[in-house]
């Protein structure tokens, strides 16, 4: 069998829509199908669409053991993050104006916090440990009497590390602080039980788990009740929390994707972990490589490696037969080194030479083997061209060199 190139190893950037999901979505678009506006209360076209929306709400709730009434549809995890953090900050601002988050959060959280700072809120950005995980005692020490919102992501998009959400939630709940979790990268990969976690708000995305792009949800806890100020005003959809015509086919797609995730997560994860371990085993004896982030507390499909003495961009160019990311997809158009890896204490050089491999539902063993072979060859070639590598091999301590301008 011949391999189809490029090989897609960028499942954390986005996933293909599962064909079973796509097959459901197309039943809610055209004239002979259920195309009505779910808000239309006066005819069967609207009611049928509304029924489909209801089922999907149940499917999403089921994956995270929530009540369907706790699910608010949005246009994606970015909007969910914005609605959660701004919505809670605005609603509870009379109690205080302090927010705590982490430097390795997604831009959707960090930029939202920056916006709130411009509005007069104060934000503490915590440093994670070199493993990417939070030290809980340092976290607790950052909380203040006027802290109203904490936002910590469940799984990091670049390094795949899993934070101890349960432990964090226990701390915030005791202190009456609203706890938001960006779960865009964890849903379908890590079990989530909202009954067991003291999480108040949780952001979800469809396109990270084989659903459509442009679709997301926000979990909003009912007991104890969490209040939000709406950010999008209009027809009063989603109990007034998020106005705008519901995109039935998108919602159906997200529901089906979540249903499949619940059914197949265990078997998917086992296979994906096996492939990820195979990839790591195939690369680990290459000299001067560094795995970024904790390997234990990590999603099955993520491997993030820095290849020292290799320039990041040329590496990406050399690897054009495989679709991977350096840094996160959302910022890979910029040439800044990954702020996530910098926050772990990695040098600019190592951050620049990092590659994120993310394996998913449709990855095959052959693709992994091809990737291993390709990378080993390219790394050798690139290092042959690198004067730094030559110096390193000659035993020069590069950190001691004073580079002069010329």
């Amino acid at each position, binding site marked *: 069998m011949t391999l189809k190139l490029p090989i897609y190893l960028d499942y954390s950037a986005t996933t293909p829509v599962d064909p079973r999901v796509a097959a459901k979505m197309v039943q809610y678009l055209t004239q002979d199908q259920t195309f*009505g506006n779910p808000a*239309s209360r006066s005819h069967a076209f609207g009611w049928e669409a509304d029924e489909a929306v209801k089922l999907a709400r149940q499917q999403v709730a089921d994956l995270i053991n929530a009540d369907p009434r706790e699910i608010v549809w949005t*246009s994606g995890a970015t909007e969910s993050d*914005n609605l959660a953090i701004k919505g809670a900050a605005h609603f509870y601002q009379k109690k205080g104006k302090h927010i705590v988050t982490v430097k390795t959060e997604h831009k959707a959280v960090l930029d939202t916090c920056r916006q709130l700072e411009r509005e007069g809120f104060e934000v503490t950005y915590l440093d994670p440990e070199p493993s990417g995980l939070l030290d809980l005692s340092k976290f607790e020490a950052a909380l203040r009497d006027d802290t109203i919102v904490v936002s910590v992501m469940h799984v990091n998009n670049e390094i795949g590390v899993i934070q101890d959400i349960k432990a964090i939630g226990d701390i915030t709940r005791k202190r009456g602080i609203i706890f938001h979790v960006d779960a865009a990268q964890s849903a379908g990969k890590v079990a989530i039980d909202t009954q067991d976690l003291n999480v108040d708000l949780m952001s979800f995305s469809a396109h990270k788990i084989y659903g459509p*792009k442009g679709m997301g949800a926000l979990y909003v806890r009912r007991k104890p009740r969490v209040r939000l100020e709406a950010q999008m*005003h209009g027809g009063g959809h989603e109990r007034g929390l998020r106005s705008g015509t519901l995109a039935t086919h998108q919602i159906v797609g997200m529901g089906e994707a979540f249903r499949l995730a619940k059914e197949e997560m265990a078997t998917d994860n086992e296979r994906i972990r096996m492939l990820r371990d195979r990839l790591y085993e195939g690369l680990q004896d290459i000299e001067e490589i560094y795995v970024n982030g904790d390997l234990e507390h990590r999603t099955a499909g993520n491997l993030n490696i820095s290849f020292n003495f290799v320039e990041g961009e040329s590496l*990406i160019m050399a690897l054009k037969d495989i*679709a991977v990311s350096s840094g996160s997809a959302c910022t890979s158009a910029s040439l800044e080194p990954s702020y996530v890896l910098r926050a772990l204490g990695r040098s600019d050089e190592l951050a620049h030479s990092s590659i994120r491999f993310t394996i998913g539902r449709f990855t095959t063993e052959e693709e992994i083997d091809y990737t291993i072979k390709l990378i080993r060859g390219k790394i050798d070639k690139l290092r042959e061209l690198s004067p730094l590598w030559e110096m390193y091999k000659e035993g020069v301590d590069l950190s001691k060199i004073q580079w002069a301008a010329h």
Partner: protein
Amino acid sequence: MTYVYLDYNASTPVDQRVLDAMLPFHCQFYGNPSSISLMGRQARAGIDQARQQVAALVSVHPSQVLFTSGGTEANNLAIKGAAMAQGLKRVAWSAVEHPSILRQSAMLSRLGTQCSEIPVDSTGRVNQGEFKRYLESVKPQLVSVMTANNETGVIQDIAELTALKRDVIFHTDAVQAAGKIQLKFEAMGVDLMTLSSHKIYGPKGVGALIFNKSIDLEPLINGGGHEGGLRAGTENVAGIVGFGAAAELAKAELQDRQDKLSALRKSLEDGIKKIPGVHLFAQEVPRLANTCYFGIEGIEGEAMVLRLDQQGFGITSGSACSSKSGKPSNTLLKMGVEESLAATAIRVSVGKETKKQDIDEFIAELTQQAGQFHSIILGN
């Protein structure tokens, strides 16, 4: 029972050609458009093409098209985004705007922006002379007037209003007008314009804000530099591609659609007028060719609409977004229609898939139902 859909202003089915354009972007060209890899670039190319297609529909440069999750978000971004970026003190909109404009007032007030309503006349339009006086007395810094109303279909001559403005940001919600009348952004003299995909046979969950680049906007959704930093979030690639395809078709087929819809509505209204006690709203002024808004004296619109649903006809008694509220149409009340008459309002909106036979069957059913209602009311 075959079901006849006559509620195209609430939403339209996706055109098969639009769906064909969208499908490859689900399972085949699924890359993240922010990724520089080949797969990312394929997705990006789909968005670029759609941007050109939407731009062409309203005759602007593609860089003036900002994709959103729909008309509601675009309306929110236009008003709140401009108000926040520029610290506007006074904004005004017509009294018959969509809820996604009207309901921004509470948040805007909290941000320190005063909101006020520009009255409409009995035809549902902002009168030019009134508008001039309004600008001079209230001095709004931003004005929003919709190009065509979702309930009545009444078309506002936007250029006539923008001709009067000096240093006022002018936004128009063209969600209902797009694809039904020609829209030229520059000629209309507006600075911001809202469009929606699912009203022009494209998918739900996509819209656009067309903007004049000299207008400062503040993003409502932060995080990542998507859409020129004005709207964060991974793009709804398939949806955007579908919107683009729908826009291209809307432009190419505008005349054909107008001709067809006008003919359908003529037979619809000819039939409706024969029903005793019928009242057609705003029929003396330019309206969208597909929209017919009427009431039958003594018969509550909601009751009639539900009865017709049972008989297999999907219509509405108000705009879909507020049809939960149970209150008579805000638009009609603001036009000075008596509350009792407003409560009879029924909207029939036809579309490109509507057939002459659908209209004939609808009129026959409506006539019969009206007769039954009237005989109950009259007690004989």
